[in-house]
C-alpha cells in the first residue's frame, strides 16, 4: 500500500505547481492540471479502498489497521510527533468521499469558474485544500491531524475569501477563520492534555497509559469535541458557516458540504473508542448539543431566502444528525447500542454525495439567474431540466424517501436514537420531518411557481421595464456531468452494505431496516413534503402568507437566526473588547509602547548631544582613541 503516499503527494504537487507557475499558464491548462491530479488521486483512493477491503478481515473479525508510512517527525523527549498514513475503515471511507466530491468539484469548476479572474489561484487553493483534508483523514496521530486540521482551516479561509474584492467575502473568510481558530484553541489544549497525561499522541494508546490519564481523559476529549464543534459548525459555533457561502459555490460544495465540516464528526469518530470507554458522559453531551443544533438549524433553514444559506443551515442540521448518532452510542458493540457509529459514518458518506449535489445544483442555478435570492428564481424546471431532476433527487435523498440514499442512513440514525431513548428518537424524527419540509420549500420556490424571468419579460414587452431580463439556460456539460454522477451515486449509495465495512468495533454488521422507525419517518417526510407542496407549489400561496402574517415574530426571529450572531457580537464587542481588550490595549500602548518610545526619544536626544564628537576630524578622533586607550591601560594598571 506504499502508493498511498501519492494520494497526498499529488494534490500537494499540483498546488505547488499551480501556485508557483499558475500565472504563466492559460486557464485551460491550469484547470486541466488540477483536475488531472485529482482524477489520479480519486483513482488511487478507489484502488486503496478495493485493496484494503478486498484483503478481507483478520482473525478477530475486523479489518486490519495499516500504517504504510510513518516517520518520526519531531521527537520531543518521551513524546514524539509522527507523520504518516493510517488506513482503517473510516479513513479509507473518507478518502473515497473526499476524492470523489473533490474531483466532481474540480470538473464542475471548469465550467463554473470559466473566465474568472484568478482561475489558476482558485485551482491552486482547491488542490491545497484537498491535500490538507486528505492529510487530516489519514493522520496517524492526533497531532498530525491537528496540523492538517489547521491547514484545512487556512485553505478554507483562502477559498471563502476567494473574491477578495468583495467586502462580504473578506468578512466571511475572517469570521470563519477566527471562529474555527477559537474552537481550535480548545482542541489544541485538549491534545496537549491528552499528550501530557497519556505520554503519546497516538489514537490508541496502551491500556497502561490510559489508566494513568483516566481522570483527565473526559476533559481532554471534551475539549477536542469543542474543536470539532467549531469545524463542524455545532451550536453556538455555527455562525461562520452561513456567512461562508460568500465563497464560490463549488467551494461551498466541497468544503461546507462534504469535507471540512465533517472533520469534527470524523474527529469524534476517530476518538470514538476512547469516548465510549472513558467518557460516555461527554459523548452524551455531544448528542444533546447535536440534537439542539439539528433543530435550531432546521428551523432557521425554513425561512431563509438565499438558497445557499438554506443549504448551509441544512448542512449544519445534517452534520448535527451525525453528531447525534455518535453521541447516542452507549457501547462499542453495534448490536447493543453502538449502531450510531456506523449510522453516523453512513450518513456522512451519503450526505457528502447528496449535499455536494445540492450545492453544485444551486451553483448551476445561480450561474443561470445570477442571483442567490429565491425571488429571482421560480419556474426554472422548464429552463434547466437536468439541474431540476438532479436537484429533485438530492431533495428526495435528504428528505429520507426510499430508495434514495438519505433514507437508509437517516433511518439508521433514527434507530440509534430510539435505542438511546424514546424522546431523543421522536425529537430527531421531527427534525427529519422539518428537513423534508424546508428542502421541498426550497425546491418548489426554485423550480415551480411563477417564473421571474417570464414576469420580467412580460414587463419588458409591455414597455414597463427598460432592460431585457437574462434568460436562464441549462449549465454546460462540465457542470451537468458532475451533477448526474452525484445524482446517480445518491440513488444507489443507500444499498451499499455499509455495516460490512464500518462498524463501531470493526466487526461485521448487517443493516436491517427497522420497520416501525422506517414507516414513521417515511410518513413524517411525506406529510412534510405534502405541506410544503400546498404552501409553496405556486409561489407563496394565500395560506402561506397567512401563516407568515400570524407568526411574524417567530418568522423574523428565525430569519435572523434567532439573533445568535448578535449575541456573539455583543459578547465580543461589548464585553470582551471593552473589559479585556481595551485595558490590554491601553497597557500595550502606554506602558510597553510608551517605554519603548521613551527609549527611542532618549536615544535620539543622547545622539544629538554626542553628535559633535563625530566631527569628521581625524585629529580629534585620534585624541579620543589614544585617550581611551590610555584610560583603559590606567584602569588595568590600577586593578592589576
Amino acid at each position, binding site marked *: 500500500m506504499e502508493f498511498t503516499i501519492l494520494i497526498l503527494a499529488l494534490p500537494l504537487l499540483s498546488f505547488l505547481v499551480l501556485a508557483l507557475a499558475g500565472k504563466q499558464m492559460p486557464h485551460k491548462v491550469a484547470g486541466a492540471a488540477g483536475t488531472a491530479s485529482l482524477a489520479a488521486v480519486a483513482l488511487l483512493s478507489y484502488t486503496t479502498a478495493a485493496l484494503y477491503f478486498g484483503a478481507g478481515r483478520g482473525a478477530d473479525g475486523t479489518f486490519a489497521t495499516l500504517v504504510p508510512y510513518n516517520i518520526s517527525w519531531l521527537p520531543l523527549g518521551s513524546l514524539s510527533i509522527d507523520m504518516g498514513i493510517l488506513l482503517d475503515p473510516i479513513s479509507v471511507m473518507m478518502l473515497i468521499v473526499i476524492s470523489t466530491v473533490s474531483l466532481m468539484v474540480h470538473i464542475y469548476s471548469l465550467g463554473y469558474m470559466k473566465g474568472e479572474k484568478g482561475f489558476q489561484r482558485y485551482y491552486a487553493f482547491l488542490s491545497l485544500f484537498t491535500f490538507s483534508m486528505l492529510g487530516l483523514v489519514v493522520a496517524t496521530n492526533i497531532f498530525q491531524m491537528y496540523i492538517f486540521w489547521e491547514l484545512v482551516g487556512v485553505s478554507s479561509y483562502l477559498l471563502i475569501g476567494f473574491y477578495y474584492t468583495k467586502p462580504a467575502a473578506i468578512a466571511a473568510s475572517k469570521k470563519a477563520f477566527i471562529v474555527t481558530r477559537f474552537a481550535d484553541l480548545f482542541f489544541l489544549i485538549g491534545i496537549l492534555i491528552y499528550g501530557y497525561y497519556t505520554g503519546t499522541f497516538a489514537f490508541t494508546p496502551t491500556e497502561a497509559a490510559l489508566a494513568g490519564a483516566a481522570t483527565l481523559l473526559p476533559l481532554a476529549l471534551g475539549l477536542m469535541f469543542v474543536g470539532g464543534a467549531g469545524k463542524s459548525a455545532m451550536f453556538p459555533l455555527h455562525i461562520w458557516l452561513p456567512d461562508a457561502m460568500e465563497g464560490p459555490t463549488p467551494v461551498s460544495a466541497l468544503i461546507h458540504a462534504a469535507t471540512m465540516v465533517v472533520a469534527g464528526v470524523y474527529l469524534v469518530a476517530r476518538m470514538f473508542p476512547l469516548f465510549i470507554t472513558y467518557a460516555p458522559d461527554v459523548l452524551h453531551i455531544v448528542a444533546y448539543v447535536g440534537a439542539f443544533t439539528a433543530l435550531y438549524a432546521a428551523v432557521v433553514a425554513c425561512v431563509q431566502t438565499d438558497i445557499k444559506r438554506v443549504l448551509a443551515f441544512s448542512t449544519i442540521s445534517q452534520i448535527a444528525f451525525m453528531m447525534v448518532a455518535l453521541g447516542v452510542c452507549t457501547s462499542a458493540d453495534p448490536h447493543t447500542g453502538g449502531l450510531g457509529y456506523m449510522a453516523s459514518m453512513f450518513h456522512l458518506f451519503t450526505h457528502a454525495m447528496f449535499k455536494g449535489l445540492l450545492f453544485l445544483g444551486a451553483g448551476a442555478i445561480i450561474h443561470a439567474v445570477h442571483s442567490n435570492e429565491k425571488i429571482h428564481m421560480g419556474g426554472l424546471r422548464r429552463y434547466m431540466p437536468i439541474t431540476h431532476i438532479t436537484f429533485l433527487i438530492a431533495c428526495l435523498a435528504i428528505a429520507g424517501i426510499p430508495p434514495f440514499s438519505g433514507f437508509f442512513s437517516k433511518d439508521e440514525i433514527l434507530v440509534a436514537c430510539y435505542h438511546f431513548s424514546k424522546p431523543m428518537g421522536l425529537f430527531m424524527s421531527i427534525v427529519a420531518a422539518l428537513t423534508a419540509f424546508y428542502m421541498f420549500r426550497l425546491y418548489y420556490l426554485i423550480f415551480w411557481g411563477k417564473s421571474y424571468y417570464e414576469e420580467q419579460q412580460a414587463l419588458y414587452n409591455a414597455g414597463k421595464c427598460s432592460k431585457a431580463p437574462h434568460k436562464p439556460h441549462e449549465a454546460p456539460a462540465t457542470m451537468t456531468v458532475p451533477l448526474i454522477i452525484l445524482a446517480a451515486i445518491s440513488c444507489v449509495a443507500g444499498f451499499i452494505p455499509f455495516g460490512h465495512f464500518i462498524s463501531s468495533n470493526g466487526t461485521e454488521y448487517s443493516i436491517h431496516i427497522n420497520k416501525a422507525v422506517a414507516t414513521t419517518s417515511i410518513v413524517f417526510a411525506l406529510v412534510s413534503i405534502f405541506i410544503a407542496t400546498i404552501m409553496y407549489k405556486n409561489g407563496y400561496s394565500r395560506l402561506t402568507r397567512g401563516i407568515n402574517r400570524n407568526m411574524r415574530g417567530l418568522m423574523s426571529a428565525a430569519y435572523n437566526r434567532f439573533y445568535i450572531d448578535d449575541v456573539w457580537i455583543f459578547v465580543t464587542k461589548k464585553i470582551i473588547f471593552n473589559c479585556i481588550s481595551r485595558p490590554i490595549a491601553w497597557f500595550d500602548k502606554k506602558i510597553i509602547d510608551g517605554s519603548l518610545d521613551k527609549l527611542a526619544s532618549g536615544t535620539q536626544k543622547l545622539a544629538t548631544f554626542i553628535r559633535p564628537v563625530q566631527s*569628521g576630524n*581625524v*585629529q580629534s578622533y*585620534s585624541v579620543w582613541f*589614544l585617550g581611551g586607550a590610555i584610560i583603559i591601560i590606567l584602569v588595568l594598571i590600577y586593578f592589576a
Partner: protein
Amino acid sequence: MIIPAQYFLILSAVLFFIGVFGFFTRRNLVSLLISTELMLNAVDINFAVFNAYCHPQLLEGYIFAIFGIGIAAAETAVAIAIIINVYRNIHSIHIKRLRDLKH
C-alpha cells in the same frame, strides 16, 4: 658600561609621544606626516632594542625594524603624492580646508 634597556625605551617613548603631540596639534598635512614619521621611528627603535636585549641570538626585531623603515618609506611616498594632489586641487594643505571627504 652597558646602557640599560630602559634608557632606550624611555627615549623612544618620549619621541613617540612628542610625535603624538605633534599629530594632535598641527594643522598642516606635511607637519602631520612629519609627526607620524617620528612615531614610526620610535617604534623602530623599540624593535631594535628589544631584539638586542631580549633575543640577541635571533633577528626578528632587527628585520622588522628594516621592514618598518620600508613601510614608512612607502607610506610617505603615497602620502606625499596625496598631499601634492590635494594641493593641486584646493591650493591648500591646511586641514580645515579638507572637508570634501567628510560627508
